[in-house]
């Protein structure tokens, strides 16, 4: 120990000690060891896959042999621009937009209450109450709506009880969004999406609202603003980054989803389904890849706009 008059400790730790000394002298080496494995993994596996995806979208499929032709071509993208395919894209984007809007509307009261009025254990309860559906099984949640929306299911049953059947029928007979039944219509798909992504919208809005000091609202009150004005001029602008942050999730998730429309929806395709279908039995990977570029590009643009609006601070 230090009794021998030396300034230097030499604890008996052998190899590990020497390695530790080395890493101490060379912090760069330590960083490389820490960062190496995850980066290699993400870099090779994930980024590599994304590159592979991009590459695939420039390949094409030979219609006769069904094999992938590994030569650079824009044929696949040209296919993508065909009206039937563009329809799919448009359909998906419109659905994403309406889902985003609806979830923002429904999420806001919940987020507002949780941010401004929930205290103590109620706050924790709210948090768990929002988190649980978020993390519990995606498939089960979609399935739940199949149950609910089935013709013999609970929604129709309650509608009949309350006498609102004509309303539902009217909705279903509407040109685009209607269908033979709730579970085979865009309305059904819409409901499922809103349900699925609602927690993603609640949490960022709540976070953004929590950052609004209560004194600001009271000041607005003091200065004579009516509640509506306070909302429009103070609360809403401050909550907006949170709304945009939440919308990133709802938009992105809707763009890519292929299971919900398959289980609850019309037989017309969404982007996700198109991707799945093409890569499946058809083996048309290039087409699937080209289709999947659409959400990526759309989200890239969306994220760029969101960043400009400061949404990333709310995440």
């Amino acid at each position, binding site marked *: 120990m230090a009794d021998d008059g030396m300034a230097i400790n030499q604890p008996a*730790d052998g190899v*590990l000690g020497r*390695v*530790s000394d080395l890493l*101490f002298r060379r912090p760069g080496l330590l*960083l490389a060891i*820490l960062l190496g494995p*995850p*980066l290699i*993994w993400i870099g090779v*596996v*994930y980024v*590599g*896959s994304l590159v*592979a*995806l991009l*590459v695939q979208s420039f390949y094409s499929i030979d219609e006769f042999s069904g094999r992938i032709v590994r030569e650079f071509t824009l044929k696949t993208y040209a296919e993508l621009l065909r009206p039937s395919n563009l329809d799919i894209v448009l359909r998906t984007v419109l659905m994403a937009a309406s889902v985003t809007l609806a979830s923002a509307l429904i*999420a806001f*009261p*919940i987020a*507002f*209450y949780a941010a401004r009025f929930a205290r103590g254990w109620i706050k924790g309860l709210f*948090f*768990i*109450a*929002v988190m649980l559906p*978020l*993390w*519990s*099984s*995606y*498939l089960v949640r979609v*399935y739940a709506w199949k*149950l*609910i929306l*089935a013709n013999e*299911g609970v929604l129709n049953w309650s509608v009949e009880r309350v006498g609102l059947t004509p309303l539902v029928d009217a909705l279903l007979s509407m040109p685009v969004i209607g269908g033979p039944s709730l579970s085979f219509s865009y309305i059904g798909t819409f409901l499922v999406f809103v349900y699925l992504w*609602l927690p*993603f919208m*609640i949490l960022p809005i709540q976070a953004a609202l929590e950052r609004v000091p209560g004194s600001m609202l*009271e000041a*607005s*009150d003091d200065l004579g603003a009516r*509640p509506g004005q306070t909302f429009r001029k103070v609360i809403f602008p401050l909550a907006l980054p949170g709304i945009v942050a939440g919308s990133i999730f709802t938009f992105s*998730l809707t763009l*890519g*989803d*292929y*299971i919900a429309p*398959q*289980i609850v929806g019309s037989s017309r395709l969404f982007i*996700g389904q198109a991707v*799945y279908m093409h*890569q499946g039995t058809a083996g048309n*990977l290039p087409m*699937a*890849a080209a289709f*999947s570029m659409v*959400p990526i590009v759309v*989200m890239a643009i969306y994220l760029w706009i969101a960043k400009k609006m400061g949404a990333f601070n709310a995440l």
Partner: protein
Amino acid sequence: MRFRKSRSGAPLKLKIGAVAGLLFLHLPLLLIFLYAFTTEEKSYQFPPPDYTLKWFAVVWDRQDIWDAFGLSLKIALIATGAAIVLGTLAAGAVARTRFFGRETVSLLIILPIALPGVVTGIALRSAFDIADIPFSFWTIVLGHATFCVVVVYNNAVARLRRTSPSLLEASLDLGANGFQTFRHVLLPNLATALLAGGMLAFALSFDEVIVTTFTAGQQTTLPIWMLSELVRPRQRPVTNVVAVFVVIITFLPILMAYYFTRGGEATAGQGK
């Protein structure tokens, strides 16, 4: 409705709106529970004609369900393990040191969960195709581990940021080398965060279906089994019973993860 923080609490309309929203979130799941006990086999009739426990027994005897469950479990465990190791390493690098490209690294790690599952799935599929890798157990694990890393990473980073640097310095100062410091000081402080991250990663992997369908080939995980049942239903209550169990299996880790990380700034789950 005034916005003053009154002692009487929130205005009634707001309270109703908030509660209604929460009910909207939770009722569907409760309905699944209800349907697991129905006697009606061929449809989703509401209200259920009668109640029974027999479907639980039926599920118990179904080997295909047990196989799928076992596969999901194995995948989830291995993917979680890999995620914990990789996530902790990355967090260790990013949380403290400032280095060139740090923001990029953070972004890269978050990317697998930020991009839609379909993109991750088809990207992996494209890669396997170009590299001529056949589908297998390991292709599934590869996909799962990749997006599970970020969950552990977020929890680890949050915990590391809350750990005072002087704790590590104190340990070094008192004679512990880097490895001893990790073992005696850093790891105990990280333990619950890693546990929470691990549980979330487990739940995430166990439930994952989108990426899995792209990377699975002939393998059937429990979600894949469920998906095929949803598209072509055979015995609906059987599916409901399985659904109930899936909910419980993903429910418990979330609760535990929340319990482990509450009281901190970043509570588990916010990374999703």
